[in-house]
């Protein structure tokens, strides 16, 4: 990354709500200066204990593993993050006579340990070894076919928000809708409808446990006839949290699993381009989550199911399972925070930065 960005990043890194330690991209030059327990203070600002106490907020140290790339997750769907050969194992497109696509996915439920805050590891349940699970994206009218395999030690399902028949519900409610025991496999098949920004999650019981352990993901259905302005960049954000000590309360919060992920690695966008955020709330235990963007306003499409915006705002609240599409054009270059405006959640990890270039 160029020097200018790094300077901006460093200066802002000190004043942001959840002061990050290394906002440069894979360049260790400046790490030594900011990595210390209490970061350096602005020029001209006395390094007294009062200031040090302000900037000591935030996580300690660096992420130890690269088990999940939060930056890549933002723009990956239908396993587009994988090399072609690898991708073919999990995703297949077939053209159908009616000009729609049959989209096939291979889902494996696996138990995996993930790093949810620097140095803090969580024994998660996952779709394909990642939390959130792989993002599924189709066009309205396509056929979705999920080859589901339970490779874990507990019964699991996949329950998609969207139209489907009772036997594809993934809840065990219908006689033909089986909950998959360890080792079992089945197929979920349905048409991608209605268009919108949806989610999927495990619906075996207790559901609260299966969601909090990490079995969820984004499911995006694009409208067949889209009259909205075309987005230059689309980002998938799943708000979540982790109860690392299993006391029924989350210890860390995040968007896309890793606490403060986008403080460590800010999201780069261009001034004036249309950025579309597919935002969903898969947080368990806490009833309300929220999204707030600094210094910019966005068009909000509730659940993304209409082609005209429902609101123009900079802060929204979302209950469990709710989704929104947020369209924003950043007005000026610089660094802008985004975080839950439930401040407690922000200060426990759900906070990040945009770099506008």
């Amino acid at each position: 990354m160029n020097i200018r960005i790094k300077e901006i990043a460093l200066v802002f890194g000190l004043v942001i709500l959840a002061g990050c330690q290394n906002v440069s991209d894979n360049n260790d030059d400046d790490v030594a200066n900011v990595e210390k327990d209490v970061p350096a203070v602005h020029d001209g600002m006395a390094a007294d204990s009062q200031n040090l106490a302000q900037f000591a907020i935030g996580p300690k140290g660096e992420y130890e593993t690269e088990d999940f790339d939060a930056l890549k997750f933002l723009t990956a769907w239908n396993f587009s993050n994988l090399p072609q050969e690898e991708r073919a194992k999990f995703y297949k497109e077939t053209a159908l006579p009616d000009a729609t696509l049959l989209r096939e996915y291979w889902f494996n439920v696996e138990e995996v340990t993930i790093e949810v805050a620097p140095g803090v590891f969580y024994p998660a349940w996952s779709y394909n070894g990642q939390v959130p699970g792989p993002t599924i994206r189709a066009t309205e009218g396509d056929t979705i076919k999920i080859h589901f395999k339970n490779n874990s030690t507990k019964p699991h399902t996949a329950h998609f928000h969207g139209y489907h028949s009772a036997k594809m519900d993934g809840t065990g409610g219908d006689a033909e809708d089986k909950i998959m025991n360890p080792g079992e496999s089945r197929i979920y098949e349905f048409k991608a409808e209605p268009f919108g920004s949806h989610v999927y999650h495990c619906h075996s019981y207790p559901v609260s446990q299966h969601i909090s352990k990490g079995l969820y993901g984004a499911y995006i259905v694009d409208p067949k006839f889209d009259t909205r302005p075309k987005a230059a960049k689309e980002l998938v954000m799943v708000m979540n949290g982790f109860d690392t000590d299993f006391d029924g309360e989350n210890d860390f919060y995040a968007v896309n699993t890793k606490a403060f992920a986008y403080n460590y690695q800010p999201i780069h966008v261009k001034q004036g381009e249309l950025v579309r955020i597919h935002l969903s709330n898969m947080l368990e235990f806490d009833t309300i989550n929220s999204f707030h963007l600094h210094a910019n306003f966005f068009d909000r499409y509730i659940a993304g199911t209409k082609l005209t915006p429902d609101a123009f705002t900079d802060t929204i609240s979302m209950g469990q399972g709710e989704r929104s599409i947020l369209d924003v054009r950043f007005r000026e270059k610089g660094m802008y925070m985004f975080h839950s405006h439930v401040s407690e959640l922000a200060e426990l990890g759900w906070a990040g930065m945009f770099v506008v270039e």
Partner: protein
Amino acid sequence: MFNNAKIKFVLAFLFPLVLVALMIWFFVQKGTLGVLEGNFPPVEKIFVERVVFEPNKITLKVLNDGPEEVTVAQMIVNDVVWKFEMNPSHTLKPLENANIGFYYPWVEGDPLAFKLVSSNGVAFEKEVDVSFLSPVADGKYIRTFVLLGLYVGVIPVLLGLLWFPFLRRLKGGAYMFLLSLTVGLLVFLGFDALAESVELIGEVPNSFNGVGLLIIGFLLAIMVLGVVSYKTENHVTLKGDHYKNLRWAYLIALGIGLHNLGEGLAIGSAYAIGEATLGATLVIGFMVHNLTEGIAIVSPLTRMTDGKERIVQHLVTMGLLAGVPTIIGSLIGGFAYSPTLAVLFLAIGSGAIFDVSYDIIGYMSKKAEKGLFTPVNVLGFLTGLVIMYGTGFLVI
């Protein structure tokens, strides 16, 4: 060199030891052969022993109180993820200590909740009811605690001793009343210290076994005083009766001193963590409360017929023996309070006091022609308890 019998003797001692060693080796090498080998979640425990407040800065003194190694990965203060420095290491073996230091804009008087999160996501919590600047060992604070010890320990005991001229004029029943009163005072103090010790067990890290410390402290005091008493008995008897009385008074002074060490610890720590404001009322309360300790010390001396020439010197020494530990205790309590030490010291104090009370009762039963439970004795004993209970209201 060794005859057969000797070798047999040594072998008889070593054989079981060798077997135990072999068994330990076997289990370490081979495991427990299927027993209890479930995949249990990690048993991690971090105990926050002490929270030290400095301006805009806090230090947590922590101990690994569990059977397994623990790595502290993150810290959350009042529901905010917070940066910290942990020395000497983030990873603690069982019973290892560390300091967790960080800058934090704490507000005086506010409660604070600390949460340490291990690499396995286990959370260890510590709450502070009142944030309060911790004393540092500078001249001002040492002066404060020395004065505190003087007010609460030394001066009242010495004042109590001033009743000596009055008390020694008491005759017959009145004397027995005084002795029973003393026993009453002491028994109250003994239970008081014991109860306090028991109460603090909950705050002791599990690995330090508070109950064990209590038992050891309590019995240790009794045993040590018992041995001292046994060893000096013949010696002083030869030297004359008044030595016996003196020795006795010293033992009481020592017992009370040990008790006051525990009391000083409690006062010092309460002051240091902002739980007690040392107003004049409290200091006066402690003074009145502890006056009675002086009375307890002098009571054996009131029968002395000879050896009075150096009595003032002895009284001052006893006063210091009983009172000075309060200063030491409050200094320890103020700067390095640990519930572990408090449990031990309070138990020692309690044991010492029960031992002394037992001695006095023994002496009384030798004197008593009509048995111990005369109305005078019972009344004296109960009066002692009531005085302690009553003056206790002054130190709430």
